[in-house]
């Protein structure tokens, strides 16, 4: 316990201590269990990350993968599951499996595969965190690995349609979010008043979806309809990470809400216009051109507030 433990992980943004679900899980667990971790976020000047992130280094021991790191912390007597019953321990394992099977593919897709999201947000962010020339190579590799994982675990035998797979994984993810919301109910954490391993995992998966501002927001919109999950994330951020609420001005949150309203209005308008166009289908080319220019205008309005907000 006297040995210092260092955690290397991806850094954060948009009010989160990290953008990476696995890094976030480990950081949250460390906070819950009181483990003194020295967190090193990967930055430009640091040595190139190799192998899995996050990585825990304690004296000579190097451990990767969240489950193993958490096991190690527990063995060092930093146990957040102390008060759980046997059934709750079993439930933890089951819900983590649910997260990995049903939510993770959509999360990976939102970050790494969805073209607009990847090109405008994910790639630039990760590239800026890594030293050149690895920054040219690593984001692409992570993107390919994510797509690979999605296709191998969820794709059917060829010929399959990628859009069908995408539709299915988002359906599953939304169902998973609904199930989590029902399980959480009105309690503060999943098993009562103190957070445990499951809370760390759920937080790790949900917080990036909740906070990161992507152009394609499917999953985030669904999550925002489940207020108890949003409250869960905010509670952990404010109690254990003390970043968002005090670190950013409330003005930013108001701006966020305004932009959300604007996005909703613009989406409604473009839906109405699409309906009108379907009805007035006289000259096919004209309506679609009008639609395209309108969408571009909508996109322009959306993207500039986004650029202003992102640090």
């Amino acid at each position, binding site marked *: 316990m006297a040995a210092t433990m260092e955690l290397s992980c991806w850094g954060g943004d948009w009010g989160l201590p990290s953008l990476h679900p696995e890094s976030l899980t480990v950081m949250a667990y460390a906070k819950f269990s009181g483990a003194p971790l020295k967190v090193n976020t990967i930055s430009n000047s640091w040595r190139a990350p190799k192998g899995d992130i996050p990585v825990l280094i304690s004296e000579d021991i190097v451990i990767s*993968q969240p489950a193993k790191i958490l096991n190690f912390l527990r063995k060092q007597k930093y146990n957040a599951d102390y008060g759980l019953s*046997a*059934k709750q*321990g*079993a*439930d933890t*394992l*089951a*819900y983590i*499996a*649910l997260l*990995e*099977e*049903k939510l993770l593919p959509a999360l990976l897709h939102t970050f790494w595969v969805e073209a607009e999201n990847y090109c405008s947000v994910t790639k630039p962010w990760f590239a800026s965190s890594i030293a050149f020339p690895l920054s040219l190579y690593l984001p692409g590799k992570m993107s390919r*690995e994510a797509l*690979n*994982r999605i296709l*191998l*675990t969820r794709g*059917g*035998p060829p010929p399959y349609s990628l859009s069908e797979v995408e539709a299915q994984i988002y359906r599953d993810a939304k169902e998973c979010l609904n*199930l*989590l919301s*029902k*399980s959480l*109910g009105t309690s503060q954490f999943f098993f009562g008043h103190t957070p445990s391993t499951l809370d760390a995992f759920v937080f790790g998966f949900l917080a990036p979806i909740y906070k990161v501002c992507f152009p394609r927001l499917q999953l985030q919109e669904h999550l925002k309809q489940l207020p108890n999950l949003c409250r869960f994330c905010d509670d952990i951020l404010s109690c254990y990470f003390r970043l968002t609420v005090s670190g950013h001005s409330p003005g930013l949150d108001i701006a966020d809400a305004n932009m959300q309203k604007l996005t909703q209005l613009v989406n409604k308008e473009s839906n109405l216009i699409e309906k009108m166009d379907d009805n007035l289908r006289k000259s096919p080319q004209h309506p679609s051109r009008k639609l395209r220019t309108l969408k571009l205008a909508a996109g322009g309005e959306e993207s500039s507030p986004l650029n202003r907000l992102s640090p």
Partner: protein
Amino acid sequence: LLLSTAAEPWPENAALYQQLKEDQILLSDNASSLAVQAFLQMCNLPIQVVCRANAEYMSPSGKLPFIHVGNQVVSELGPIVQFVKAKGHSLSDGLDEVQKAEMKAYMELVNNMLLTAELYLQWCDDVTVEEITHPRYGSPYPWPLNRILSYQKQWEVRRKMKAIGWAGKTLDQVLEDVDQCCQALSQRLGTQPYFFNKQPTELDALVFGHLFTILTTQLITDELSEKVKNYSNLTAFCRRIEQQYFEGHDKDSPAPVTSRSAKRSLLR
């Protein structure tokens, strides 16, 4: 489309397709097939088990088993449960929302840990692959097709293992995971007859399918089945379901876990 099929009652000639029972089928496919059979038995829906060497290629998703009902073909337990529900039969209607969430989570646990461990053992453990899997998988086909098909499948499964991070695991670590999974299932089951007390659900069918198959399949070593045997309530659970839903049916009864001195070997 779903409305029109829902109106049709369950036909007498509904069939479940899997690979050849004696020579070809592997541990993981046998477990999945048994799970579906158990589920349908619990719903009181009659089904004929049909064995075909090319069942894997007939399946719409490439995964087994699949059922052929009327003019619909549905594969894998999840979609089959939904299909049966559309026809008006369901085992989980009596559960509240939180219980349904738990049920789905535990089903994912079985898929995530048990099924993946079975696949690992079959396709990534070199001894098992050489002595059991390769001879069995391609057995209906002549040389060299049998070797080509099984190498192709092995490559596919190993790719998947690599993508989900299991390729680096040793056999001991995989067995550790199986133990953890069984421990969780055992703790959840406790002293109840089924996972949600009095009535079985699709979760019970899935757990039965996998655990019973592990217990009654002869592999290179007994390590896998020993992990399950450590938990007496799980073995009692398997026995209970077998007695209730499979004994007394002539077609395709799985061998009893106790009594007979020679374990009926599903492999070898």
